[in-house]
């Protein structure tokens, strides 16, 4: 009885001012019974005293000892008094304080809580963030004290949340109500799970608080759902921009020359391996500028893929104009050769391409919605490439020739357009754009010999839906298919979504066999 009173007094006292640690309490850390030890740890935590931090840390490190009635911290052959921190003589036979797993867990959360009082702002912030997921009702007074002392607004906001969480178990319904109201403003899944028990009669006897909790959970849910949808639309946009990078090149080659290039996915692969090559080069020769390897890879990938494209066109495709089905088979053969070449040159395993430091991380919009920088940059990059292609096709002489050949090949030839050279240039351009797509892909997916295969069906779908020879069609189809499939994915799972998209496309071209944007005019077969 006396002991409880004593503890109570000490507890009250510790809240008020910087009282020195109570030796009895420190001794209690060495008690036989674990429950008593836990009680002592909690009480020491409440003092929020730097000395308490030292003692608890020592206990966690197994360097807290008891000699007679004195608690000592022994490090090697030096001993200090646990309470005062002053060096003392090494005692004859100190008795170590045993720590089991339960105590260890208790110690680590106590030390984490005490970090709230650290003088370093960063440490306090980290500790407050860590606390969010493990608030217990006992922490309420401690949090109140930390809140009182805190000056940084960001940490203060975090502590307010934690304090509200701790207050949910308060005996006073008014305090609980206030806490629930406070928490309703947040949008984090953890807070929702904390609030959930309060929505049932067993967890919350007071009606008012319960209704408030139900409303709060609803509010959080709707915010979470919105964030999820925004996230899905964003990843759809990001998928769409990847599809666009794949399909832009196809739209040019198929549109202009009527060539189905089955090796287009492998041109993406060439671009991705070129990126990998630049990364290796920078690592070996310019390690200080390693973050710049990616911008440097853009032209390299473009020209590497374009070169492969020119080779393809000059050696194989040139001889097959007008025989589209044969071109399809021959380019498939080229794709097999390219895949196997990559295997021989770089090995069958995926190679590692890492994001430059300025691409890692992201913008956190809500606790469950993070927009990664690499995706944002890729969307921007796709827009940039699209702009480039648009300028090239609409504002340059080459673009004019390409469009002329697309619309009427013999007539273009008659007025002096070198159609065969334009074919090569257009094919190289399409291949180069695929190479740019490869640069983007290398930042978000694996780089390996088979990487192109996964994109070829999707890219063709974009071209089929978009319509032949139309940049606008490819853009709308790519973004539309990207967002549509990501939204379906959230609703039906990845595989079913993919199947549904394919079924949708088959149904779509029933209605519009020429794609969204058909070339106006009549065709003679």
């Amino acid at each position: 009885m006396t002991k409880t009173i004593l503890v109570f007094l000490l507890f009250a006292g510790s809240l008020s001012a910087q009282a020195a640690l109570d030796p009895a309490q420190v001794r209690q850390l060495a008690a036989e019974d674990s429950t008593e030890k836990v009680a002592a740890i909690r009480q020491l935590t409440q003092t929020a005293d730097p000395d308490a931090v030292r003692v608890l840390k020592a206990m966690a490190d197994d360097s807290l000892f008891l000699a007679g009635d004195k608690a000592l911290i022994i490090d090697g052959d030096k001993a200090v008094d646990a309470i005062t921190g002053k060096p003392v003589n090494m005692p004859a036979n100190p008795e170590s304080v045993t720590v089991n797993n339960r105590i260890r867990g208790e110690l680590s959360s106590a030390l984490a809580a005490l970090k709230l009082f650290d003088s370093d702002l960063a440490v306090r912030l980290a500790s407050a963030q860590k606390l969010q997921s493990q608030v217990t009702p006992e922490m309420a007074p401690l949090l109140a004290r930390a809140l009182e002392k805190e000056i940084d607004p960001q940490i203060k906001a975090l502590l307010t949340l934690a304090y509200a969480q701790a207050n949910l178990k308060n005996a006073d319904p008014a305090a609980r109500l206030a806490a629930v109201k406070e928490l309703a403003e947040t949008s984090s899944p953890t807070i929702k799970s904390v609030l959930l028990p309060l929505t049932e009669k067993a967890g919350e006897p007071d009606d008012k608080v319960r209704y408030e909790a139900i409303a709060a959970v609803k509010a959080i849910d709707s915010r979470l759902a919105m964030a999820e949808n925004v996230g899905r639309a964003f990843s759809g946009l990001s998928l769409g921009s990847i599809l666009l990078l794949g399909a832009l090149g196809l739209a040019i080659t198929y549109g202009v020359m009527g060539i189905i290039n089955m090796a287009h996915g492998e041109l993406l692969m060439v671009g991705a391996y070129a990126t990998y090559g630049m990364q290796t080069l920078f690592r070996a020769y310019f390690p200080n500028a390693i973050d710049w390897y990616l911008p440097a890879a853009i032209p390299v990938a473009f020209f590497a893929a374009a070169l492969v494209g020119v080779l393809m066109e000059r050696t194989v495709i040139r001889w097959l104009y007008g025989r589209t089905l044969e071109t399809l088979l021959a380019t498939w053969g080229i794709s097999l050769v390219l895949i196997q070449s990559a295997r021989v040159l770089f090995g069958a395993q995926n190679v590692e391409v890492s994001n430059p430091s300025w691409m890692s991380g992201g913008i956190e919009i809500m606790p469950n919605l993070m927009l990664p920088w690499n995706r944002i940059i890729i969307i921007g990059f796709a827009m940039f490439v699209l702009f480039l292609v648009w300028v090239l096709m609409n504002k340059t002489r080459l673009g004019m020739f390409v469009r002329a050949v697309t619309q009427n090949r013999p007539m273009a030839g008659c007025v002096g357009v070198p159609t065969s050279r334009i074919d090569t240039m257009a094919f190289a351009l399409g291949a180069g754009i695929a190479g740019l797509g490869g640069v983007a892909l290398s930042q978000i997916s694996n780089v390996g010999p088979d990487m192109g295969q996964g994109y070829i069906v999707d890219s063709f779908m974009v071209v089929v839906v978009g319509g032949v020879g139309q940049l606008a069609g490819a853009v709308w189809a790519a973004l539309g298919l990207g967002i549509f499939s990501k939204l379906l994915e959230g609703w039906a799972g990845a595989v079913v979504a993919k199947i549904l998209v394919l079924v949708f496309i088959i149904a779509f071209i029933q209605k519009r066999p020429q794609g969204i944007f058909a070339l106006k005019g009549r065709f003679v077969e």
Partner: protein
Amino acid sequence: MRKPLTIRILSSLDTKSWIALGIFLALALVVVPVLHLNFPEDSAFHISTYAITLIGKIMCYALVAVAMDLIWGYGGILSLGHGLFFALGGYAFGMYLMRQIGRDGSYQSDLPDFMVFLDWKELPWFWVGSDSFGWVAFLALALPAVVAFVFGYFAFRSRIKGVYFSIITQALTYAAMLLFFRNETGFGGNNGFTDFKRILGYPITSSETRLVLFGLTAVMLAVTLVFAAWLVKSKFGRVLTAIRDAESRVMFIGYNPLWYKLTIWVISAVICGIAGALYVPQVGIINPSEMSPGNSIEIAIWVAVGGRGTLIGPIIGAFVVNLAKSWFTVSFPEYWLFFLGLLFIIVTLMLPQGLVGLWKKLMDKKGASA
């Protein structure tokens, strides 16, 4: 005046071809079994189980190649999704083989092992009747036919053709592959069907069962070849060829290309289904990778190598390419894709008529110089 059917069928092949077909059947039905059963394994005349399985497998592929030739060589429609029909036939028949395992699976359950693994308590509805040989044999034909009909009707009706059609068929088989990869689809997911034990109660790995299946495949191949030869020489076949060469003109003359295309498309799919059903018991496994776009496009190269629109060419092509594949994958596995890729390129560039065309050219030269 139409000649009786027997005459018309007989006249679909010339005498030389009938003799060749007879020799082929005699080899498959008499010589191979005798050599396999009556000579010890170390004898030079012995035909190993490996060889029988390999040839049996390639004959199934040859069936697919003939089906592909009907649609591509005569119909002018390049399908990149024929692997789907092949796999559907295989899966349909595989269901029966899975049921024949009975309680001999790892879990000693009435259900196939993969269902026990998924903790399913009873067979899903589409497995009903899968223990009956007749029903499953029907399914192996009907399933590809129905899928082909529905898909073909919508595709041909809206006059999707050329590369568009090819790409859509590729997407179709790709979608089906993704579907079959899922465990919940109810066809064994990734692993597909394997570890078969019996067929009609006979042990599936015994020499006799193998020989019967081998002979059956050979007969099927011969029958299909004769049927196809008759078909393409009939009026139907001629209209089909006309559609291939000038669809608009045929339409203006008054034919509706839809039904011609659809008929040959469904026939082609059914032949693939039969090939798949014969393939599964001989090879002992069927899994979704059979539906991968790469597999289907390989079928096209068999036909192209042999020679389109010749019926015998695709069979030769299937044998040449697949024998080369078996040899390469054992001796130089890393060069197989180079070889296959170059084959695609060279055949399309240099041999538009395939091996049969090359042979004819050589014969013509010889005839001219003599």
